[in-house]
């Protein structure tokens, strides 16, 4: 289906474009061209490479290999070729008005009365995309609701500015919009493409993809695994193309007997003694927030919490690491009251426990008194595991804890978690990796901040999780 890169009618043409982050192949050789009138639906699981592809096209990331050309305009950069991106993470300046935000993107707007021109343009763009909107061009962005901000951002993206947009990339634009507004956007996208514009539309709402896309591109592990006209796909076919069959040897966990229920949250998250509960679904659908609420609610800012519940952070820099400290101090911070005598930390005990965990979890360092930042990300993550597992807390909360951990260590950690669970510890484990979720006794799938499905035993498969993650019903 893909056209050769020499295709002079393409707005953007990628030839074998690749992007590597160290050994990680985020984008692994993608050839693609987008011509005026195209509306390309882009789907794939988290980490499939969708965002990397977008960032390579819009010039945020230079490709590690391959070419990216803009044949139609002859430009060398995405901005000059009038390629615009609208992100799910809202990127407007909250302290400026809507019109002033347009001015940031629209460098050509000058003169003494630029505000008037900016107001005019942003109003026209809003009326064009979202007829009947009630957004004031002079409202500062932080006074707008999240949906209104997203609408303003979309309008600014489609606004003509110096020259009409040739390609607009929409990354999950409807996640904060209600159905009626989303429908306005989809209608506009169709009109925009019919008038000769091009759109890349990324969404986890498959209904929208089928509604608007002329072609659908499915990505997995940094590669394009399918690219066909939308009419040749079925919903089930799309889900199948995105997911992969359960990895070899991912044995279904045998049903075990658990103790009494010891965790129950108002939103329906429960766990029994000795159980490993997985939290799954698409990233950002409320799993991390649910775990943070659970942990913060069960512990106090006024009393030491080491004995009741421990937390393994996935976002190491924000939630886990103490950057000025040694590996030793980072590992022991949650067990200090236990290894202290009359409130003074016993250095011998501390060193002994840390050395024990270094051996058990394989922290690669010659000396535990080295700074924590001397370790690679994966090894820092192991320190955070050691911190949690070294405590005697009965409940371990894990917020996507395997980021950057290599395959071999993952297997060791799985084994360690299973043996700790067999001893009666409870694990709540959020992961974006299906392989990890398959280690769990029970999996709850989140969608839009709520639990949408609960799977046990042989039902824990990638297909079932994906089905529960996506909004399958008709929009």
């Amino acid at each position: 289906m893909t056209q050769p890169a020499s295709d002079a009618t393409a707005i953007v043409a990628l030839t074998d474009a690749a992007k590597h982050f160290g050994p990680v192949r985020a984008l692994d050789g993608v050839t693609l061209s987008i011509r005026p009138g195209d509306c390309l639906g882009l789907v794939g699981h988290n980490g499939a490479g969708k965002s990397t592809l977008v960032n390579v096209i819009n010039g945020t990331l230079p490709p590690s290999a391959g070419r990216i050309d803009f044949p139609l305009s002859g430009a060398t950069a995405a901005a000059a070729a009038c390629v615009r991106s609208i992100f799910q993470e809202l990127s407007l300046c909250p302290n400026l008005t809507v019109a002033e935000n347009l001015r940031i993107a629209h460098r050509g707007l000058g003169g003494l009365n630029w505000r008037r021109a900016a107001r005019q343009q942003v109003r026209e763009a809003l009326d064009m995309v979202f007829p009947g909107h009630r957004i004031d061009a002079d409202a500062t962005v932080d006074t707008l609701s999240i949906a209104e901000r997203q609408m303003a951002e979309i309008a600014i993206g489609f606004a003509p500015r110096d020259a009409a947009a040739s390609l607009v990339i929409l990354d999950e634009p409807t996640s904060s919009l209600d159905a009626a507004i989303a429908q306005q956007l989809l209608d506009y996208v169709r009109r925009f493409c019919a008038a000769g514009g091009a759109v890349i539309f990324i969404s986890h709402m498959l209904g929208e993809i089928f509604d608007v896309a002329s072609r659908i591109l499915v990505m997995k592990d940094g590669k394009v695994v399918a690219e066909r006209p939308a009419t040749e796909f079925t919903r089930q076919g799309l889900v199948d193309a995105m997911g992969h069959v359960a990895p070899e040897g991912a044995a279904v966990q045998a049903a075990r007997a658990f103790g009494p229920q010891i965790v129950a949250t108002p939103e329906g998250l429960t766990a029994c003694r000795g159980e490993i509960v997985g939290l799954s679904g698409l990233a950002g659908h409320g799993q991390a927030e649910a775990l943070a609420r659970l942990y913060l609610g069960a512990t106090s800012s006024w009393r030491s919490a080491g004995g009741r519940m421990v937390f393994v952070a996935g976002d190491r820099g924000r939630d886990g690491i103490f950057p000025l400290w040694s590996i030793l101090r980072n590992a022991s911070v949650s067990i200090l009251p236990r290894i202290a005598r009359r409130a003074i930390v016993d250095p011998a005990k501390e060193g002994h426990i840390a050395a024990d965990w270094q051996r058990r979890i394989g922290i690669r360092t010659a000396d535990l008194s080295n700074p924590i930042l001397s370790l690679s990300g994966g090894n820092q993550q192991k320190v955070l595991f050691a911190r949690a597992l070294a405590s005697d807390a009965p409940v371990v909360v894990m917020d996507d804890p395997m980021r950057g951990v290599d395959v071999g260590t993952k297997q060791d950690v799985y084994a360690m978690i299973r043996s700790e669970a067999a001893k009666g510890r409870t694990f709540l484990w959020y992961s974006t990796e299906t392989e990890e979720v398959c280690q769990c006794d029970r999996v709850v799938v989140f969608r839009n901040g709520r639990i949408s499905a609960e799977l046990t035993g042989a039902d824990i498969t990638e297909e079932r999780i994906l089905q529960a993650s996506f909004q399958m019903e008709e929009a």
Partner: protein
Amino acid sequence: MPMTLLQKPWLWSWLAAAASFALIVGLTEGRGAGGLAYAALSFGAFAAIVGLGQMLVISLGPGNVDLSIPATMTLASTLALKAMGSEPGTVAMGLGVALLVGLATGLANFALIYLLRLPPIIATLAASLVYQSLAIWSNRGLRIRPPAALAEFATGRSLGVPNVALVALALSIALWIMLERSVWGRWLLASGQNLRAARLAGIPVEAVRAACYVTVSLFAAVAGFLLASFSGGAALNMGQEYLLMSIAVVVIGGTSVAGGASNVPGIWGASLFMFLVVSMLNSYGASAGLRMVLTGLIIIGIVIAASTRRALR
């Protein structure tokens, strides 16, 4: 953490103090070196005590500072001296009053910060107006002399060292042990590095913060009590110079303003330096204006030297 002597952040404040000392002694050709050291220890002790408290709060991370130190010093010493009324045998009671005042102002400061979610700079500055007003109201222009025994202790010496310096030294050592060895010290330094990570690691972060704000007020109360006894009575402006002083000795001493790292030896180096640099400029005959300009420049130089070292680490 393996670290050579050159990388110790407290080194610079001590080098600066030693250089100022050498320059003064060089001018007088060695005469008066003992007297100068004695004076530096006496006056440095007060700066060290308030500096230690301020260091705890600053270690909590950006935005944490106690600007009510001068008012707490004044209020604690005013009420303590009034309670003692120059009568003999009331010293313990007076110290108790001062400590109670420190406890009360510390709790009040933290209540403003925690319950009303005020930034510490605003909360402590606003509260200090209240404390200062209370001191003015209770003082009413009287200058009550401390009991003779207390005045004798505050101005006296043991083994050739000023008693106030010995008190400050004892407080420093106790605090140093707390910071380096105790669970509480670890909790404080962890909270200062990353408050969110500390909370998620099970540290009672609000209790740690409360303890810091109470401790700084207790230290300020002790410093005020000793200073009033040392100088023959409480004065309403007695704490004034300690606002800038408490922050300056923390920064010059090499404590990271970004939080999570504290430095007890540096506080002493910086406290001695702050006294010696003024003495040095005096003995070289610098005018008042020039003295202030040079003091400012020297402080900036030391802070740059100390922070550059840390960046290289």
